[in-house]
């Protein structure tokens, strides 16, 4: 078992770093930033498209996807290395959360041929229309309805926390197609263009807005959205998988979406930053890197980050080998966000009172990025499946425990 990288993989890492240094302008960095931008829809400008085109030409987008669908037919470790370097630079090139894994698993050949190459090239992007105001983490309780009308479905309802609805070209929508069926059995998934008549986006501002989090903030988008559907007519070809079988497609897609480097890397980016900050900073003759308490804490956080990295590697390995992937992504989804909360809080404690000041204060350290990271870190424990729901999945799928009364009720 070798956990190291080959010389070829190390050379690839250096090549990616050099590419980023050569091509990333400050303006592009602001637009492409993983978490901090709100008013500028991410990756939609001509310069962003040109940037993606260059990355694609290098063979660094869709590395693990089949060549028949515009991918590279490569391995997950290569993808991990490339993703790691782009994430350090604040750019998300992963297809996690894109809908692509679910389309590959459940889509028709026509859907794969249309969507996968375009998703890889970033010509299109999906936002996820799952959560509703009354349903919260209990996704199966959704009420957004899709009623069959000949070759079409008519959709009415709303979605909450549709992050990226203000920049996406499509929405990956979960809607109820049979109101009389048990709640998990009457759900379907639709792939819908955002310009379909009747779709409305209303901004929701998060704790990372006002003041807007500074550029290198690692955690938490400052804008998410409500999305409304008023008599939206979509052709039956927009259905992903079978009608009324969407719960399985959606759950499987969400689980596969969790595989990859991004959850580990958003924490690592902050861990690496604080190590560099502590090593290179002096306060009135005090060198924090020599303080035993600070050294202990940073070492502890680094160890936690490595656990997170190993969990990520294991998930990738299981999926790469075609193994059964059930609770592993959920375990990762508990560990990584909670590590993020612990590490961002520890960093502000190490920095003292000034570390808790937001960017609006003239005394804030590094434009308040550490304080903004604390606030944003809590979001990552909620979005894409809360850590509470993830723990329940680990208990049932990983440990074979019976459903709790609450989860039985939630799942019908």
């Amino acid at each position, binding site marked *: 078992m070798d956990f190291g990288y080959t010389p070829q993989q190390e050379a690839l890492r250096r090549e990616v770093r050099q590419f980023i240094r050569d091509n990333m302008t400050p303006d592009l960095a602001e637009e492409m930033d993983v978490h901090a931008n709100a008013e500028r829809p991410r990756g939609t400008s001509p310069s962003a498209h040109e940037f993606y085109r260059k990355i694609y030409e290098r063979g660094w987008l869709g590395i693990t996807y089949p060549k028949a669908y515009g991918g590279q037919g490569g391995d997950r470790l290569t993808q991990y290395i490339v993703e790691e370097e782009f994430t350090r630079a604040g750019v998300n090139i992963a297809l996690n959360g894109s809908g692509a894994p679910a389309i590959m698993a459940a889509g028709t050949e026509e859907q794969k041929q249309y969507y996968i190459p375009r998703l890889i090239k970033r010509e299109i992007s999906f936002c996820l229309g799952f959560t509703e105001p009354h349903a919260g983490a209990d996704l199966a309780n959704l009420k*957004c309805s899709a009623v069959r009308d000949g070759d079409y479905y008519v959709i009415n309802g709303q979605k909450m926390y549709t992050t990226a609805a*203000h920049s996406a070209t*499509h929405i990956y929508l979960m809607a109820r197609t049979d109101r009389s069926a048990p709640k998990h059995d009457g759900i379907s998934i639709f792939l819908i263009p955002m*310009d379909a008549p009747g779709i*409305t*986006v209303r901004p929701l501002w998060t704790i990372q807005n006002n003041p807007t989090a500074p550029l290198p903030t690692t955690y938490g988008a400052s804008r998410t959205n409500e999305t*409304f559907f008023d008599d939206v007519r979509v052709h039956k070809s927009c259905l992903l998988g079978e009608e009324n079988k969407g719960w399985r497609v959606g759950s499987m897609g969400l689980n596969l979406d969790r595989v990859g480097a991004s959850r580990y890397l958003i924490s690592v980016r902050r861990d690496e930053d604080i190590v560099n900050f502590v090593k290179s900073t002096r306060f009135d003759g005090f060198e924090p890197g020599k303080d035993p308490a600070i050294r202990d804490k940073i070492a502890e956080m680094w160890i936690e980050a490595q656990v997170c990295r190993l969990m990520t590697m294991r998930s990738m390995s299981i999926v790469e080998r075609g193994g059964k992937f059930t609770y592993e992504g959920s375990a990762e989804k508990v560990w990584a966000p909670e590590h993020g909360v612990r590490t961002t809080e520890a960093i502000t404690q190490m920095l003292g009172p000034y570390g808790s000041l937001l960017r609006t204060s003239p005394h804030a350290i590094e434009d308040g990025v550490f304080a903004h990271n604390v606030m944003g870190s809590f979001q990552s424990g909620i979005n894409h499946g809360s850590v509470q729901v993830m723990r329940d999945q680990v208990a049932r799928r990983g440990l074979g425990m019976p459903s709790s009364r609450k989860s039985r009720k939630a799942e019908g």
Partner: protein
Amino acid sequence: MANCPVCQAPVDEAAAKAQTGMTPGGAKEVDPKMGTRQFHDGTWYYFDSLDCRNKFTRNPDSYLKK
């Protein structure tokens, strides 16, 4: 003009749905200051704020009986 089911404040339904912009993906954008709405049992209800909408969501029947 509708009334918020929670606080009874007037809500202009047309303004809450009126287009104020368009996303790069082509969806209609609205002004969040004009209120929000909730699709409940096949009907849209309008609210002056998210706070009121959240209260309604927790227990809609208590507000619809009023």
